């Protein structure tokens, strides 16, 4: 009947909410948006599912045709596109394709002055951003020769090594900007493009805008749960 049209609208709405909830439950949403948005996505997902459910129930109960007017779904059909995409295949995290197409993160701003690392300590895990900012701050003297461990993906080959990158996002993947670091001193073939790796090594002074790291070990790892910094 007339109500069936809004039953379709209610169904689409419920699917939108369900997809949002599925993204948060499986933690997949971190591929697309900043981790802090998770709570808001959950709230929005629950609200949208309820809205669709109420519409659906009302549409089914309202069986007198012609009594209530109805809205067309119109452009709302387009919502089926991301629903279909996300229910079946989840687009991956941003990879090396975007490196070099987007502007790199500016490591020269916001880093401030770093305290020196302790020499002789075990390798310290560090974000690529901090590595870059330390490299810029007083030309990397704060590394003090101490080893660090970085996690990122392979963005391309360079002479004697490869480029390691990781995106910074401030809201969603549309505003992603990569930090890129050159990993040198690796032997053999570099890992494949887009392979996630954990690299341990020491800062090498004298690089240009892209800082250098001399690697002592490179391990291939699965993509981390939160792919962006």
């Amino acid at each position, binding site marked *: 009947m007339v109500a069936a049209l809004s039953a379709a*609208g209610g169904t689409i709405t419920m699917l939108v909410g369900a997809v949002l909830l599925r993204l948060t439950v499986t933690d997949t949403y971190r591929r697309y948006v900043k981790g802090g948005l998770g709570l808001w996505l959950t709230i929005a997902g629950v609200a949208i599912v309820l*809205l669709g459910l109420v519409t659906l129930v009302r549409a089914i109960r309202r069986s007198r045709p012609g009594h209530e007017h109805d809205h067309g779904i119109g452009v709302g059909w387009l919502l089926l596109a991301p629903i*279909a995409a996300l229910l079946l295949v989840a687009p991956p995290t941003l990879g090396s394709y975007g490196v070099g197409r987007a502007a790199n993160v500016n490591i020269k701003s916001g880093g401030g002055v770093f305290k020196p690392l302790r020499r002789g300590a075990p390798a310290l895990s560090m974000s690529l951003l901090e590595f870059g900012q330390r490299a810029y701050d007083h030309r990397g003297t704060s590394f003090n020769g101490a080893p660090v461990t970085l996690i990122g993906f392979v963005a391309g080959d360079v002479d004697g090594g490869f480029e390691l990158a990781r995106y910074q996002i401030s809201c*969603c993947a549309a505003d992603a900007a990569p930090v890129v670091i050159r990993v040198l001193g690796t032997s053999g073939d570099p890992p494949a493009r887009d392979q996630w790796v954990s690299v341990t090594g020491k800062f090498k002074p004298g690089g240009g805008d892209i800082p250098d790291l001399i690697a002592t070990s490179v391990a291939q790892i699965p993509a981390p749960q939160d792919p962006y910094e």
Partner: protein
Amino acid sequence: MLGSLGMGGVGDDVALSETARVHELEHRRDRRSDVGIAVVVLVIVAAAALRPLLQDLLDKPAVAHWATIFVAITVQAMPFLALGITVSAAIAAFVPDDFLPRVLPDRPALAVPVAAVAGAALPGCECGSVPIAGRLVSRGALPAAALTFLLSAPAINPVVLVSTAVAFPGKPEVVAARALASLLAATVVGLVWARFGNDRFLERARRRHSHDGPPLSVMVETAQHDLLQAGGFLIVGAATAATLQTAVPRSILDGVAGSGAASLLALGGLAVVMAICSEADAFVAASLTQFSLTSRLAFMVVGPMVDVKLIALQAGTFGGRFAARFAPLTFAVAMGSAVFVGWWLL
């Protein structure tokens, strides 16, 4: 019908054909509704069948990049859109019809600046302010004032200003310049619209009828309708932004880096094309170090007011003919305002 009674044979024919037409319409609506459910099912089934094909497509880096950005913009906008729709639906359900015209100033010279400053009270980004502004118009608020609110809310709210301060550490003048230039642009656009704009172009927002019935039921129906409308247009905008981001490498910007008119236009255009959230654009602006501060200010003033996602949302809420006039006007005023404030403060 009543009028046709006295008109004899001709009127009867009209009445008859009228009944037939209503019948035909109901019939067609029945068929359309069946088609509706069928389409939902068909899309899901087809997508399931084509899953291997979709997976193959995603193995192509460019397609994967596009899909990720498309999904990211859509997902990121959903909570803000839901907030805006909730506020809009609550206004429709609980604010009496004659309330807004009564309490709001009706002289543009007063109403527009008040609306610009009031934008600071809505902590969200641009996706949320479109449905709210649409509702204000349909509830009889001065259109120029509602449009000013639409422009200023995503640009000068506290969340956006704080994130700007974080993105430009030690440069409070950037935050001040952003707030000032955005207020100025929103006010000027509102005043220009009040003077020269034709509210005929807003008919789509005006036409939005309110439902009758208990407030909660009105709220649900309004929210449902707005979600499907705004959501659909959001998809159009997100797909456009993802296409442009994938197809146009950012490195073409390097050719115009610097501080001339070309660099201003390039960053203004980039803001339109990227369609990123106003809460995040300051960080992108901060990374565009090869450009002058004034050019980056233009990026931050234009972005929350005009971008491909917003144009789609505005076309859906107010009508396409409105969006075709409002977007160029806003772009020009926002650029001018950024140049003026940038020259003064930065």
